[in-house]
């Protein structure tokens, strides 16, 4: 076989492979949206399409670049490495951020300009103000309790044997693994209520409460306290996060300093507040700001537990309700912008302290 024939043969094979792959992708894309197809196979095809597709994308682009004229090759190559990431970020974050900001100044169908009307409506409407008030309460109460309990628990568990410490920490940390929807079900059951005379209580809280001789309480309907009961769910979820990170920070405090303080006659309490706490302060700030950001964007818990009714609305939940349920793009976008703008300063503090903490290592 002459070199030219071989060259053409390889080219033909590669073209065949490319066409085959293209056909397979098109076919599987059609298959996974076919309502009649077997679900198990659809799922397998979807996974294969997604996983193999992304690998082929990069391999294919590299293949093409290798066949470019040598002058361009090394100048183009970096862009096929960063290109997909930049494209995705452009489409999914940069464009939407700009577009949402624009939409927040337009009406409910995004047709006409309305200036600041959406914002003035939000800041004068009672229901929206309630959601803002609630969100503020959430970002104060949840991080406060999650960090306080997490710090207390980390400090106490540090004094136990290693096995007991790890077991105890696993249990506090475990809720972090489950979804907010799952956690909501867990607590829906805790708060379950039956009016007196409609059978015995099956929620553990009312079980205890009536066991103490009280009348059962519909916890989730008790304004304004129901907000607190919803917050408890997130405290339950986030304490483990605070605890694990603070525990690592506590263990990094040099043993000698603590020993020296002890020899000078300091009590455990004094050691904690004068030695340990100042040393881990930047970690406490990072943990607190991180939880604040999570709390500020909380949606699932409120949406699943009360749907934002009974005075429990929060900003992130209002955003989805306005946009998705009421079909009001303007209000939805305005709520998203409020979420975004409020996150920026907290994020700035978070990143600064995170870097200080990293440099200490």
């Amino acid at each position, binding site marked *: 076989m002459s070199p030219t024939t071989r060259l053409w043969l390889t080219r033909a094979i590669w073209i065949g492979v490319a066409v085959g792959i293209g056909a397979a992708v098109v076919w599987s894309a059609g298959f996974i949206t076919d309502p009649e197809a077997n679900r198990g196979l659809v799922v397998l095809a979807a996974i294969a399409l997604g996983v193999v597709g992304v690998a082929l994308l990069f391999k294919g682009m590299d293949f093409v670049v290798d066949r470019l004229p040598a002058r361009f090759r090394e100048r183009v190559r970096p862009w096929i490495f960063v290109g997909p990431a930049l494209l995705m970020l452009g489409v999914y974050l940069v464009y*939407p951020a700009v577009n949402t900001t624009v939409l927040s100044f337009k009406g409910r169908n995004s047709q006409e300009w309305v200036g600041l009307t959406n914002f003035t409506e939000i800041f004068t409407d009672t229901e929206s103000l309630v959601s803002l008030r609630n969100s503020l309460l959430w970002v104060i109460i949840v991080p406060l309790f999650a960090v306080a309990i997490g710090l207390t628990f980390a400090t106490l568990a540090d004094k136990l044997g290693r096995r007991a410490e790890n077991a105890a920490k696993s249990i506090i940390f475990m809720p972090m693994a489950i979804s907010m929807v799952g956690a909501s079900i867990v607590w829906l059951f805790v708060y379950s209520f039956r009016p007196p005379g409609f059978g015995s209580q099956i929620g553990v809280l009312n079980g205890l409460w009536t066991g103490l001789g009280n009348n059962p309480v519909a916890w989730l309907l008790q304004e304004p306290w129901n907000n607190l009961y919803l917050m408890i769910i997130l405290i339950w979820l986030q304490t483990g996060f605070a605890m694990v990170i603070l525990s690592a920070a506590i263990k990094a405090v040099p043993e000698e300093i603590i020993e020296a303080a002890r020899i000078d006659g300091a009590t455990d309490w004094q050691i904690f507040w004068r030695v340990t706490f100042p040393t881990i302060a930047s970690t406490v700030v990072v943990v607190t700001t991180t939880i604040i950001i999570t709390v500020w964007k909380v949606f699932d818990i409120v949406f699943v537990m009360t749907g934002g009714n009974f005075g429990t609305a929060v900003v992130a939940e209002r955003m989805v309700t306005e946009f998705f349920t009421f079909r009001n793009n303007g209000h939805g976008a305005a709520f998203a912008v409020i979420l975004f703008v409020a996150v920026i300063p907290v994020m700035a503090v978070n990143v600064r302290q995170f870097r200080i903490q990293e440099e200490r290592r």
Partner: protein
Amino acid sequence: MTAATEAVPRPKARRSFLRRAFDRWPVKLAVAIIVVIWLIPTLGLFITSLRPESDIQTTGWWTTLGHLWKPSTWTFANYDFVLFRRGFSNAFLNTLAVTIPATVIPITVAAFAAYAFAWMKFKGRQILFVVVVGLLVVPLQMALIPILRLYTSGGHLFGIPIIPDLNLTGTFPAIWLAHTGFGLPLAVYLLRNYIGGLPSSLFESARIDGATHFQIFTRLVVPLSVPVLASFAIFQFLWVWNDYLVALIFLGAEPRVQVITQAIALLVGDRGEQFHLLTSAAFVSMILPLTVFFALQRFFVRGLTAGSVKG
């Protein structure tokens, strides 16, 4: 970040077992109380999911503690019903079909980008990297409305269509790409920090040996970055698995493709509190993340620590 599980070993006290047990009892008591409070809600859910429906509706789950060994106390009927008659096995499969590509795609895309940001020379490298990391600030709520509009009616710039109407809503690729976009800033940041920290001599000698960037990436960088890839993979996997908002918006109400969190949320909306279904369904959704949690706790902690500001 140091894994939480590394505690300093203490010198063994040579005291009797009893004295040791009562040593520091206030601390132990306080820890025990917090642990019990934290455990009770999940325990109640788990026990309830294994009780017959009639029992669930008439007595509290704690009453089973009085007759733990009676066979009629327990049943798998709720799981059977939820999985095979309420379509939760489908929802479970759908969640896998969403989660696995939505984990693999962002990691691949981010790893290539991170390598380029760390070891390739091109114009605007620094600026672009700063912009990418800066996008961490954008909450995913900002993206919901424009992306949904993009999916349903295409993209227009000054009235000129630049992206065609793809009709992606309610398909798996719609949600993979969304999760990829939302996960990228964090992934690029983490991976670039790690890959940038690899010794430069490694890359120089590989270049001298004639390796291409693609070969260096697949044969050197990926194997060396397994710890950070694993941490991010676990974080992203759990994030997507546990996500409700993104699925709600982009998969919509189509029951055929709905993921497990949507299926559960729908069950809550149904009339009456069907706790026999809710508890078993919730537990089905928790099995995989909990397994990952207990099996890979160290990676998990690292991933979560790094990734908790996401979204």
